[in-house]
């Protein structure tokens, strides 16, 4: 039996579901497949949770071989992975996470420019990750999207643009700052994810979950350093490719299920607080009003990229077409506004 030493790392802790699933799904499945023949065994050196690098270096750390395998957080790499920002710049196009992941997976094969922007960084993509759905968490219940006008809402970096045109003011922040920002009044609430805000217990200070089911977004990939990849025996490569597919599928499913579980858990855990945690279900028209208020984000994003020679317009069209082919009905036809 041949032993192979591999380092696997992430900027985020394993309590984040898609990082935890690297252990429980990707690594476990790889081990399981390799155990079938028993020719190879991987000695995983785990460095999750920012032990090796921080969120500002998830791509370069895999690229440079600081870790062999890592979760690349594409949200924070707009310059290096421009096309990977497509879903945040065409918001409200998709809420079906498995469909979104299937589309991204297909585009990684069919769109040369998209594939190249990852492979040019000396990495091979093994599995894909997406967010669950975004909602607005507030101190006071909303009746409609119009109510957020004039409010200060915490939003992480790029998502600030989802509040443009709504009259709300985006307060830059991260999951680590939301709780105190809302508690002290630096912001009146947050635009965030159930799976992100459950562990930080944001519901204690922002008990109203205004459920818009706004959208999901493609957030990154499990990737392996290409030099490492090429040294791996074929059997190991095959096992990892299969484990990566398994990870992507399970992750898509889990995002759907865990999102509901997280919302219910918040309601349960916040049942005895005052005011108690309440889910305010927003009618579909309010969600539609919100997306119609947004400026032409897709064009604002794609036009400068085109000027740099990145075929973003074509990519948006392919992306939206592929979504429709999966039966997704985008709430705004961003591709027709380009």
């Amino acid at each position, binding site marked *: 039996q041949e032993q192979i*030493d591999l*380092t696997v*790392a992430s900027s985020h*802790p*394993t*309590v984040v579901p898609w990082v935890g699933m690297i252990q429980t799904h990707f690594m476990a499945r790889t081990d399981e497949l390799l155990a079938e023949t028993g020719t190879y065994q991987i000695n995983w*050196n*785990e*460095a*999750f*949770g*920012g*032990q*090796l*690098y*921080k969120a*500002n*270096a998830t791509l*370069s*750390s895999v690229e*440079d*071989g*600081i870790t062999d395998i890592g979760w690349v957080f594409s949200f924070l790499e707009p310059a290096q992975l421009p096309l990977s920002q497509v879903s945040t710049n065409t918001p409200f196009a998709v809420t079906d996470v498995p469909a979104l992941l299937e589309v991204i997976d297909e585009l990684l094969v069919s769109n040369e420019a998209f594939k190249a922007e990852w492979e040019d960084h000396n990495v091979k993509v093994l599995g894909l990750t997406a967010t669950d759905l975004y909602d607005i968490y507030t101190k006071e219940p909303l009746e409609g999207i119009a109510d957020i006008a004039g409010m200060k809402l915490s939003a992480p970096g790029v998502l600030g643009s989802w509040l443009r045109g709504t009259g709300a003011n985006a307060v830059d922040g991260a*999951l*680590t*700052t939301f*709780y*105190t*920002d809302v*508690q*002290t*009044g*630096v912001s009146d609430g947050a635009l965030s994810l159930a799976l992100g805000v459950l*562990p*930080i*217990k*944001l519901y*204690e*200070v922002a008990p109203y979950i205004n459920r818009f089911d706004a959208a999901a977004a493609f957030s990154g990939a499990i990737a392996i350093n290409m030099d490492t990849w090429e040294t791996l025996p074929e059997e190991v490569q095959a096992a990892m490719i299969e484990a990566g597919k398994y990870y992507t599928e399970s992750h898509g499913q889990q995002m759907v299920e865990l999102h509901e579980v997280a919302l219910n858990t918040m309601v349960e855990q916040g049942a005895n607080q005052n005011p108690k945690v309440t889910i305010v279900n927003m009618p579909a028209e309010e969600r539609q009003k919100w997306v119609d208020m947004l400026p032409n984000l897709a064009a604002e994003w794609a036009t400068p990229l085109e000027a740099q020679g990145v075929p973003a317009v074509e990519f948006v069209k392919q992306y939206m077409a592929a979504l429709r082919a999966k039966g997704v009905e985008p709430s705004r036809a961003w591709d027709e506004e380009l």
Partner: protein
Amino acid sequence: MSPIDIGWISIGALIVLIVVGMPIGVSMLVTSFVSVMFIRSDMVAIRMLGQVANDSLEEYLYAVVPLFVLMGLLVTVSGVGRDTFDVFQRLLHRFTAGLGQATVFANAVFAAITGISIASATVFSRVAVPEMIRHGYTRKFATGVVAGSSVLGMLIPPSLLFIVYAVQAEESVGRMFLAGIGPGFLLAIMFCATIYALAKTQPKFVFDTEQTVVEQEFVSAWTVLRMATPIVALIALVLGGLYGGFFNPTEAGAAGAAGALVIALLRRSLNRRAFWRLLVETGQITVSVLFLILAASFFSRMLALSGMPNSLAVFLLDGPIGPWGFLLAYIALVIILGFLIDSISIMLIMLPIALPVASAAGFDLIWFGVITVIAIEIGLLTPPFGLSVYTIKAALDDPDLKVGEIFRGAFPFVIAMLITIAIIVAFPLIATWLPRL
């Protein structure tokens, strides 16, 4: 040689280099670089070093360091620091080692506006140390009190360490902050008791001269009020802004520095040239502290790459030692890591391994977090890598002051922290009562 062996050798090499006298930051960079070369390759070592230098400090939270330093210097130059101490001196002169006690109190108050201990250490080494020496205390004791009480900065909310812990343990930041209040006061009381005991039993440790009773010339209540107003205004500005929702803990540093600047200008204690000199000084203190953090993060990343801490923790924590054996081993391990690396790195390395065990043992994770934070903070005071001690050294910039002297002065406070941990282990309610209310 396995990566784990390399991890162990690098720790030995680091200790030798530091003790012989190589600058600590340089020692950490060199040993980490060579170790990564052996664990992976020279190319990876070069890239990792570049990344550490370019990314590890790229954090909005660290932006508070220079600003709190600047605030401390402004408070000092405008005489506000000295006035504050005169007030406390008058309030506490009847108590044994009153100025030492005053330093602890002032730190507890200041802790409410800072989330990092470096800030407390800077401010009070400039404000309290000269005053204590002026009043006949030993330099060892004066700097030791400042180093010791600076740890209150990250125990009493807001606290950077509790934020990092809350994220990893899935506890709310708000509850963790509440959990720090009781233990923060307990630790402050323990520090005061330590000072009292030292003054009574080891007067040579505390006092240089025999006559420590300061001349009590008559001052009117009006004078006291006038002396206290600036510092009260500054605290009101920062606390009011923080809890009134005007700014967050990161921004409090900037607001506090701006407020201190206004006070200095109103008191006419600052001209353009003097302000520039203060900014230069701020930069010098900032770089000597942040360079250490940069180097320590390379060292801890190298350790993570070697897999050594993982294997050690698994060895120590996974055995059949029972919950209390686990707790003891965990606290010991955290304190040992504290000899060599910085607070946040200890959390990043230890918590992923320890939290599941603690949770399985049925420990209250809020209580466990408080114990973790105090144990980690001991590392701020222990050689060879004791960040609070080096902050004081940098802030005082006195070539005759050896870091060994500060470490010795801080040692009684390490003991006080150990006793405090024991008390909180025995009486969990001290930590959990407020947050579970």
